[in-house]
């Protein structure tokens, strides 16, 4: 009997794993009990025990309990045929499974939106940048109502805690709550890690929007990823009779977390909150709120609310026809349950629209400045990224977003009006610079972004290749330019490309950080980005992010003196960062967009000085004793403060 060979069987695309759809607190609510488990489809990969795979390693050590828990073997055939372990709060192996599944799904969303493989932020241990293969996940790391991404350890630490007696909500008071079993918390933390991998300076609080954006973005991904599960949607839509603005489990993040801490409803609620009397109330957008809200979570909530409102606008407009059909024009649905066909169609629309918005928000990450991000700039990034995908805003996503941002008081600076046209990023001012700079190196650009270099290469290979290319751009292209450019051209670089390749006495920029006598220039990222071109074909752009820095001082007088060279060698209070992001066409070498943050901008420097000196007002007891963690971040000698841990700890 010939040996049965399985070589003709293709490996699967996906693996199915069971997870809790919502925070397990809902198990106590009989309505939700049926609904709370979900079958998550994640990309197939060979896993060893842990589970440990290409991107992740789950290491289940619990120091405050003095224990470890046996790592699960998800490739065990017994588990494979059952779609993994059944959801169970009391089985640590299920926790390992769930954490692996939800993180994997989140990574997949990112990769699909960006069209390339996700990389974790490299480690700086030992001085050099070193590739980090796997994000580490610790499902039972802390005994607190907290979970956080640890940028230095390249790990996510999840806490667990007994539910508080006061208003434990649906939790059993005293019962164990595991943050690693909350889908939303897992997605939120993973997003911090992914964003950190893409934009390492987005964790540095140079203005009130920076940390708020990190938080908001993590919430947005959690929120909209949840909406991409149609089976959950169907139940919600049936329950809310199609009107997703009413109270709605999907819009309340980390619900169990908030409940167990004794709060009302979820920790961060985008579209409304529970009142004192327990009733739920829709938030009305207040454009003045952003002027007075600086705490990162609260400020971030405004951005989340803006995006969610836009989602609702599009949903309502796209389902108007369905409701017209269902109500024969009256617009009033009959009492009782709505027809299951209608439920399905509404659910499909909601899932589709939320997936689109999620993609828009993720793609925007390639259109952001390298440092000092603001909400307004993020809006411009979202609009531009979507424009690059579809010239015509057929379904009104962009207009809904612009409108919604306006209602919430989020305005980009430096634009003439809020039309789509004004919000798009611009190519370099001087036409000369649109072509002059990168076009000369078109062959190398094409080689870098060519498919042959991306297929069949490992993530580590891509990382090293990118690193190498960055060196080339820096050491040859820019260095070459700096040496051979005329004065006029150097001036043009500042104006059009926002980069300082030279520095002269009259510039009053003696505070700029130099390398070999010239303003130091770091290419922090090089990567391909995809869009739809003129003839509806996929086109590749090259994204290049460049970074420059300057010594910053809180005292304006001192800053002035260092800038004009009067004083030297004084330790800075903070590093003021600048640079630019370029999007370059690999077809023509044309610089399509430049998103600049000039390091020589004194206005921007002053704003950061004011923010760090006076603007970061924190009245908590924490701040009284310890000062504000944001200003402490910049104090020299302070061992790298993990802002994510602190922010998440104080809620």
């Amino acid at each position, binding site marked *: 009997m010939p040996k049965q060979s399985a070589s003709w069987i293709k490996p699967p695309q996906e693996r199915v794993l069971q997870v809790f759809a919502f925070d397990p607190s809902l198990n106590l609510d009989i309505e939700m009990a049926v609904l709370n488990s979900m079958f998550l489809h994640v990309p197939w990969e060979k896993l060893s025990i*842990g589970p*440990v795979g290409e991107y992740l*390693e789950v*290491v289940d*050590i*619990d*120091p*405050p*309990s*003095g*224990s*470890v*828990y*046996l*790592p699960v073997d998800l490739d065990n055939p017994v588990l494979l045929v059952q779609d993994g372990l059944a959801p169970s709060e*009391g*089985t*640590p192996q299920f926790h390992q499974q769930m954490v692996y599944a939800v993180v994997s799904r989140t990574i997949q969303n990112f990769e699909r939106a960006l069209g390339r493989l996700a990389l974790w932020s490299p*480690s700086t*241990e*030992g001085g050099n940048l070193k590739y980090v293969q796997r994000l*580490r996940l*610790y499902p*039972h*790391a*802390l*005994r*607190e*109502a*907290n979970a956080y991404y*640890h940028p230095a*350890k*390249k*790990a996510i*630490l999840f*806490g667990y*805690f*007994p*539910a*508080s*007696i*006061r208003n434990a909500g649906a939790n059993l*008071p*005293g*019962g*164990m709550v*595991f943050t690693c079993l909350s889908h939303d918390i897992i997605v939120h933390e993973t997003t911090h890690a992914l964003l950190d991998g893409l934009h390492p300076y987005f964790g540095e609080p140079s203005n009130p929007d920076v940390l708020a954006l990190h938080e908001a973005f993590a919430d947005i991904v959690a929120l909209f990823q949840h909406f991409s599960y149609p089976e959950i949607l169907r139940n919600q839509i049936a329950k809310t009779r199609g009107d997703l603005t009413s109270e709605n489990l999907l819009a309340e993040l980390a619900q169990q977390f908030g409940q167990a801490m*004794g709060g009302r409803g979820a920790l961060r609620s985008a579209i409304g909150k529970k009142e004192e009397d327990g009733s739920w109330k829709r938030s009305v957008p207040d454009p003045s709120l952003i002027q007075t809200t600086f705490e990162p979570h609260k400020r971030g909530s405004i951005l989340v609310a803006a995006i969610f409102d836009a989602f609702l606008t599009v949903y309502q407009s796209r389902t108007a026809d369905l409701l017209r059909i269902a109500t024969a024009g009256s617009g009033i649905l009959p009492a009782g349950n709505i027809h299951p066909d209608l439920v399905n169609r509404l659910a499909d629309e909601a899932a589709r629209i939320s997936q689109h918005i999620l993609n828009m928000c993720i793609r925007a990450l390639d259109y952001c400045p390298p440092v000092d991000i603001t909400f307004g700039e993020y809006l411009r990034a979202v609009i531009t990224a979507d424009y690059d995908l579809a010239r015509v805003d057929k379904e009104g996503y962009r207009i809904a977003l612009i409108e919604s941002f306006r209602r919430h008081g989020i305005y980009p600076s430096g634009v003439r009006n809020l039309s789509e046209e004004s919000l798009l990023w611009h190519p370099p001012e001087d036409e000369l610079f649109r072509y002059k700079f990168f076009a000369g190196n078109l062959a190398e650009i094409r080689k870098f972004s060519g498919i042959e270099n991306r297929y069949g290469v490992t993530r580590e290979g891509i990382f090293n290749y990118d690193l190498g290319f960055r060196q080339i751009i820096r050491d040859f292209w820019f260095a070459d330019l700096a040496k051979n450019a005329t004065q006029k051209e150097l001036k043009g670089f500042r104006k059009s490309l926002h980069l300082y390749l030279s520095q002269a006495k009259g510039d009053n920029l003696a505070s700029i950080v130099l390398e070999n006598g010239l303003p130091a220039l770091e290419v922090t990222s090089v990567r391909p980005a995809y869009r739809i071109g003129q003839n509806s074909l996929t086109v590749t752009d090259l994204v290049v992010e460049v970074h420059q820095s300057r010594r910053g001082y809180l005292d304006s007088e001192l800053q002035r003196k260092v800038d004009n060279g009067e004083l030297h060698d004084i330790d800075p209070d903070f590093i003021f960062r600048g640079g630019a992001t370029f999007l370059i066409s690999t077809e023509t070498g044309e610089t399509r967009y430049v998103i600049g943050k000039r390091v020589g901008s004194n206005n921007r420097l002053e704003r950061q000085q004011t923010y760090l000196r006076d603007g970061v007002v924190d*009245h*908590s*007891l*924490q701040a*009284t*004793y*310890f*000062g504000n963690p944001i200003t*402490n971040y910049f104090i020299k000698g*302070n*061992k790298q403060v993990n802002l994510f841990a602190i922010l998440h*700890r104080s809620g």
Partner: protein
Amino acid sequence: MNGTFHLKQVNIRMYRPGLGDCFLLTFKGSNNERRYMLIDCGVLQKTANQESRLGKIIQDIKEQTEGSNGNRGKLHIVVATHEHVDHISGFVMHNTRFQEEFDIEEVWLAWTENKQDPQVAESYSSVRDTPLEALRETLSMFDDVPDADIPQSIKKIKKLFEFVADGGMDSLRSLGRRLNYLRPNTDPHLGPTNVIAREDFGGVRFHVLGPPEDPKFLEKGDLPKNKNQIYLGQPINQATALTAALLKFGKQSTFKSISELEVDELYELCLPFDHTQAIPIAEAQQDKFFIEHYGFSEGPSNEAPDWRRINDDWLEAGSQLALDLDDHTNNTSLVLAIELSPGGKVLLFPGDAQHGNWLSWAKTANGTNLLQRTVFYKVGHHGSNNATLVPGGLDQMLDGGLVAMIPVDPVRQPNYKMPNKALKMRLLSQTKGRVIQACEGIGSAEPCPGVDFKPPAEKPADMSPGEWDQFIQLMSWDQSSDKLWVEYSISV
């Protein structure tokens, strides 16, 4: 008790130990009768020369209260608002002097210090003791670690421990001839109703406003449960689970407030999973998976480097516990409103009461009434933001003659953000510049320029020259090189 007299004037002397409260009130009658009340006597640890400076202050108190080489000083009432070092270290460090050189009639403490009180035993006793021991354990785990490697959160716990004076109140219990634990006796409609009328103090009435009897005003964060509470069926919470682990894995195995057996029981109760699931870390150290993916040896290794491990990260939650404990202790401050005559001027001494404590009395009928007649406010918690309730509290102190004193001397203790800038500006505006801070003097919005005390060269804009001169005349200060005190005088 001596005979009654007609009260003419009250002198409030704020001593300047550094960051700390020490107030001597002298109640003077029309025939020079005098009664003395001392509210708190303490300074933060690590203040330079604290012991000798406090000693000098106590010497001054003795002289002010008719004490001399032969006679004892007379302290008719000694108040200790709460068990923090910056309020009671004087009583602890110089306990013998208080016992031997003073004649103390009564000691007043908050009812929350009465360990015999059943409510205290159930909710408050050992709410502080055991978690404090647990946190001490946490700190001891970093004894041998170089300062640069100690995580920020652990440093925070250390900082908060500078205020802890566990057991300190015991130094006070036997100081006077009588010991009173005071309650506000809160009425749901009127507010605090406990009024101690003292004819022997010239008819002064002492209103006990706090600490609140309703637990919901005291606890912001959930504090750890003690064994009584757990046995009574109260479920454990996060702080309990953390405390259990801190006790179990500390260096020590014996504690004052909890037995070894109880530590183990508590620990078992707080485990997240059933026994059968857990594998001790010691065993994991022999396991291939954990060796490869976590690592237990020193120094960097390829797959399992030490910088990715999380052995101590869980300890950082202790900083929140320490903050909650500090907050709780502050909230148990004895709050006294001293009414100089029926319907007349009120002096407010709230200790370090935080918002929870304030909220229990500020917005009540009785509380508001007293606030509106307040002419002197001892600013709580050295001017930190959370210790002065503004809406319903400070904004009710509308008397035109309001004066505030802030007992903090940043020059001697510059590490904290006290007083809070915004609060100080608010105080300055409400008192029209009459804010006396323990270092630089009056009306200054700037941080202390030096240790000298002198009034500003120009009077604040809001006041007429007459008003301002009058105010300056009511002030006096220690001209000696020690600059131990500043005093303000109020006529009845």
